[in-house]
């Protein structure tokens, strides 16, 4: 705070000394003008988020204290939905699966995208084509991605099993085995998202000043040392962002793929929490119960993002300089 104030003073003095004419114009004080400007700049987004995100969320939390029929009738049941959640083994199974999913997906996706980011940062002929190729999966809608992989992972005719048979192995039922289906879901998600985070990493990498690398080269640093001492620390804001975004996306997303690939099966093997919530709300009309679980999920994400925030020291969050 004190540094901010100091800077404020410095700027203020600079302003008054350099442009004396401005001092006799009748107007709000500099500080208040800045407040006003900030308010106006923020107004559209803040209002929009309030109306289309915050109010619905509050509304959803309110709903979680009601028994909802799905046909317009509501009955106050206090914490009933939360008690039900606590005692619902299917919900906790789905949380466990979500946990596995996130714990595997996020690091894998992080490493793959960072690796691709480092690769496509290189200056090679035709790099534009490679970048486009790697980004390509992200362009296709998830429903179609689901259909494509469903065909490719088919037991009898799928490309993957054909290749395995050609290599002398037995084909597998990729989407029909509880032990494999979640892995397939993760793999497909990585395939879709890697290009997206690759671009984010690429942008982060490009922001690192070249002089640093040149200096490291003069010092005779190898690629690993360079990465560890320059790239990794300076990439922290981007890493934070990717980590956080992919975690949130892993917890809240994936529905479209699940619908097409497995519909939560086999044997609830891909029934992530978000899928279970969807099922309760839109399949079974249990909006109150779904809202309770949804609110709980949001709470978990708040805690998780606080942890990630702490661990990565928020990237560039606080050092506003």
């Amino acid at each position, binding site marked *: 705070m004190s540094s901010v104030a100091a800077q404020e003073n410095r*700027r203020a003095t*600079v302003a008054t000394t350099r442009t004396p004419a*401005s001092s006799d114009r009748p107007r709000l004080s500099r500080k208040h*003008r*800045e*407040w006003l*400007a*900030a308010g106006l*700049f*923020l107004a*559209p987004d*803040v209002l*929009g*988020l309030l*109306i*289309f*995100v915050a109010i*619905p*969320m509050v*509304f*959803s939390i309110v*709903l979680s204290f009601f028994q909802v029929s799905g046909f317009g009738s509501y009955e106050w049941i206090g914490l009933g939905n939360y008690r039900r959640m606590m005692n619902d083994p299917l919900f906790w199974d789905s949380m466990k699966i979500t946990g596995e999913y996130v714990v595997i997906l996020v690091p894998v996706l992080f490493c793959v995208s960072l690796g691709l980011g480092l690769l496509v940062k290189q*200056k*090679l002929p035709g790099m*534009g084509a*490679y970048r*486009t190729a*790697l980004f*390509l999966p992200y*362009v*296709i*809608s*998830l*429903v*179609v991605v689901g*259909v494509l992989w469903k*065909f*490719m992972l*088919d037991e009898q005719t*799928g*490309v993957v099993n054909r290749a395995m048979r050609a290599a002398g192995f037995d084909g597998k039922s990729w989407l029909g085995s509880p032990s494999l289906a979640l892995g397939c879901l993760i793999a497909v998600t990585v*395939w879709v998202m*890697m290009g997206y985070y690759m*671009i984010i990493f*690429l942008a982060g990498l490009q*922001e690192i000043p*070249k002089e640093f690398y040149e200096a490291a080269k003069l010092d005779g640093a190898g690629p690993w040392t360079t990465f560890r001492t320059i790239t990794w620390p300076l990439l922290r804001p981007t890493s934070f*962002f990717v980590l956080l*975004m992919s975690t949130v996306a892993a917890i*809240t997303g994936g529905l*479209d793929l699940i619908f097409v690939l497995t519909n939560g099966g086999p044997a609830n093997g891909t029934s992530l929490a*978000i899928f279970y919530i969807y099922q309760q709300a*839109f399949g079974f009309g249990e909006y109150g119960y*779904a809202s309770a679980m*949804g*609110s709980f*999920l949001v709470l978990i994400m*708040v805690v998780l*993002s606080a942890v990630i925030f702490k661990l990565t020291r928020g990237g*560039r969050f606080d050092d506003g300089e």
Partner: protein
Amino acid sequence: MASDAMARRAHTSAGRRRPLSSRTGLTVLAVVLSLISVFPVVWMVTSSFKTRATVTDGNLIPREFTFQNFVYVFTEVPFGRYLWNSFFISAVITVAALFFHSMAAYALARLRFPGREKVFGAIFATLLVTIPVVLIPLFLVARQLGLLDSYAGLIIPAIFNAFGIFLLRQFYLGLPKELEEAAIVDGCGHWRVYWNIVLPMSRPILSALAIFFFLANWNAFVWPLVATNNQDLTVIQLGIASFQTQYTSNWNYILAAATVAALPMLVLFFVFQRQIVESIKTSGLK
């Protein structure tokens, strides 16, 4: 502008040479990874030339080759209309979102006002809200505002997303302050600083975000489905879904339609990715 000079400098300092062997290795790696990445998409494209009866046969090359799927998609279904709807909606959302988000992000990164971190925290927290949880309340809000079954209803709720604000704020925090300060010294208001200096400097990040926003909305499905009944408002992803029927799905049409839907996005990315990279170079002021 100053950025041109920067661009030239960046170009001259860029041409570093690597040993041939490592270049070859990297090229091979890039090619292999690209092939892995592209293969399913190629499969989609070739399958879109298959007939109804062979589309599920698992072959890469069609045994029975047909253009009929594409002809059908464009003649029997108002696919042009769907494309236009998606294009229009995505474009408006993208422009409006970039504008609002950059304004908000600028305020959060650069302007000083009480409760700044709290406002940012609150905006950030909206990222954690997921659509299935708030779909019903959102529908009620949209109805209350008279937004159902209209372009406005497809556009307005989709504009507001903290993701862009967050990314832009990070970007602005990293920008050097000198130019802005000089402008303020010259007596510019905050609006003019934003409009004349900050916005032009944001071009690289805005073009990257533009693609992400455009794509996300091009592929939007759930909200358009719930918020509209009017056939004239059908967006492309709903159009693709309509090829699925009760017990059988016409995968050949679905894949042809998906190919058509993906094509403009690919071109867009291919063209823009150069620009993103170029812009990132030009903005490499530090």
